[in-house]
C-alpha cells in the first residue's frame, strides 16, 4: 500500500503525504544502489510482471533493475509479440497473467486509462509505467525525487515544463505531483502542443521560451516525437529547435546558475536540447536515471507487501 492506494496508476489521486512516503523511502533505496552488493532480499519470493504494450527499453529496464535489486522474480511480457496480435483483449491478457499469481503487474500501454481497466479486473497490485497521454507516475515521482535532491525542496520553487505538453504523460504526472510539494509550474511550447484547459491543472502557459525559463529553478525538457512533425503540430524540427530548444547560448543568457535541467529521455540531441546543454552543468539527466531505479524500488516494495522496522528484536 502507498497510503490509501493498492495501485500506483495516477499521481492525480495521490496526496502530498503519499508522494512523500515514496520519496522518503527512495532515499534508503538509493543507498542500496551504492553498496558493493546491490541486492537486498526484501522481495525474495515475490514475482513481478512487466507487461509492456509499447516498446520502452529504458522504463522496462529500470523496473527490471528495481525488482531484481529487491530480489523479486521478474517476467518480461512483451505484448506486441504475443497475444495482441492474436486478437486477445487487454482484459484477457491481464487475467491470463494474473493466473500466474504475480504480486505486481507493471503495465505500459498506448491508451490512457488502460492500467486502471486492468486494475479493475485483477487482484494484484498494478503499477502504471505510462498510459497514453495520461500519466507516468513513476517518472513524475523520480522527477520530484531528483528536484528534492538537487534543490533541497520544491517549496516555493518554479518548474518550467517545455515541449509537447498535449501528448506528454510525464508533464501530467509532474503537474499532479510537484505543486503538491509546493512548486509553481510553468508550461511552454508551441500553441499547437498546449492542450485545451491545461491551466486547470494549476500552471501558467507561455509560448515564449525565455519567459518560461527565466528565473526558473528547474526545467523539464520534453522529447519531441518525430511522428508529431507534420501532424501537423509543428512544421519541422529546425524551427522548433530555434524557438523552443535550449542551446548553450540561451542557457547562459537566460538560466539561473543553479537551474537544473531534467529530461525523461531519450534526448533528441540538437532538437529540444543541444549536446552542450544535455551534457552541461545544468543537466541532471543521468541522475534521473539512477533515481528512477530507487523510486521504482520504493514503489514495488510498498505495493508488493509492506513491513516495519519496529518489531521485536
Amino acid at each position, binding site marked *: 500500500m502507498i497510503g490509501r492506494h493498492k495501485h500506483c496508476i495516477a499521481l492525480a489521486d495521490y496526496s502530498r503525504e503519499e508522494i512523500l512516503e515514496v520519496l522518503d523511502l527512495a*532515499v534508503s533505496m538509493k543507498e542500496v544502489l551504492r553498496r558493493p552488493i546491490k541486492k537486498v532480499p526484501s522481495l525474495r519470493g515475490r514475482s513481478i510482471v512487466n507487461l509492456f504494450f509499447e516498446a520502452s527499453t529504458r522504463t522496462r529496464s529500470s523496473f527490471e533493475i528495481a525488482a531484481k535489486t529487491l530480489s523479486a522474480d521478474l517476467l518480461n511480457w512483451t505484448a506486441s509479440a504475443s497475444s495482441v496480435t492474436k486478437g486477445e483483449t487487454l482484459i484477457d491478457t491481464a487475467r491470463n497473467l494474473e493466473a500466474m499469481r504475480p504480486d505486481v503487474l507493471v503495465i505500459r500501454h498506448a491508451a490512457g486509462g488502460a492500467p486502471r481497466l486492468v486494475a479493475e479486473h485483477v487482484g494484484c497490485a498494478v503499477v502504471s509505467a505510462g498510459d497514453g497521454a495520461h500519466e507516468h507516475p513513476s517518472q513524475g515521482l523520480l522527477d520530484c525525487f531528483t528536484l528534492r535532491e538537487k534543490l533541497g525542496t520544491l517549496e516555493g520553487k518554479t518548474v518550467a515544463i517545455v515541449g509537447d505538453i498535449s501528448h506528454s504523460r510525464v508533464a501530467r504526472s509532474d503537474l499532479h505531483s510537484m505543486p503538491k510539494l509546493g512548486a509553481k509550474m510553468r508550461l511552454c511550447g508551441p500553441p499547437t502542443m498546449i492542450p485545451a484547459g491545461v491551466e486547470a491543472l494549476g500552471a501558467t502557459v507561455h509560448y515564449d521560451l525565455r519567459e518560461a525559463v527565466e528565473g526558473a529553478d528547474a526545467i523539464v525538457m520534453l522529447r519531441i516525437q518525430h511522428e508529431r512533425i507534420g501532424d501537423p503540430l509543428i512544421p519541422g524540427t529546425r524551427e522548433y529547435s530555434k524557438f523552443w530548444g535550449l542551446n548553450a547560448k540561451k542557457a547562459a543568457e537566460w538560466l539561473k546558475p543553479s537551474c537544473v535541467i531534467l529530461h525523461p529521455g531519450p534526448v533528441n540531441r540538437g532538437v529540444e536540447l543541444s549536446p552542450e546543454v544535455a551534457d552541461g552543468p545544468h543537466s541532471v539527466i543521468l541522475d534521473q536515471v539512477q533515481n528512477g531505479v530507487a523510486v521504482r524500488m520504493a514503489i514495488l516494495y510498498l505495493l508488493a507487501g509492506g*513491513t516495519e*522496522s519496529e518489531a521485536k*528484536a
Partner: protein
Amino acid sequence: MNAAEIERLVRRIGKDVAERAQGAGAGHDLAIVGIRRGGVHLAQRLRRELGRTLGAEPPLGTLDIALYRDDLANQGAAPVIGPTDIPFPIQGKTILLVDDVLYTGRTVRAALDEIVDFGRPRRVWLAVLVDRGGRELPIAADFAGARLECADGDDVQVQLVEGGAAEDAVIVKPGRRS
C-alpha cells in the same frame, strides 16, 4: 534497571571487548555497527568506551535491517526504513555488532546477511545490553550486559538517551500469561 546500572554494564562490555580485541590482535581493525534503532545509541557509547581503552575510537556504522527481514508477508503496516550507513570498508575488519536487546535472534540473522553484502569481515562479534532469552535461531551474544529470564509475552524496553542521562532505563513489562 536504572541509569547508573546501565552505565556500569556499558563500561563492563566496553572493557571486555577491548580486552578480547587486544588479545585477538584486532585492536586496530575493530569497527562498530549499531543495529537501528535500539543498537545505535549503545554503539555510540561503546565507541567512546573503546576509544578510552584502545586509545582511538573505532569507526562506527549503522544498519537498518528492514530490507533483510524474513517476515514481510506477515506485516501489513507501512514500513519505516531508516538509513544504512557503513562509512568504512568491511573487508577484513573485526565487526562489533551492537543491539540493545537480544531475543529471537532474527534481527541479528538479518544484520549478518546485510553486513556480508558490504564485504567479507574477518570476524563478527555480537554485543547486547540485555539478553532476554527466547532464541528461535542458533545465535548467541559474545558480550551481554545482563541476562534476564523473561517469558515470551514480556516486553523488554531499553531507553537510552544521547550521551547518557538519568532517564536511561531498562523496563520489563510482564505480558499477558495464557
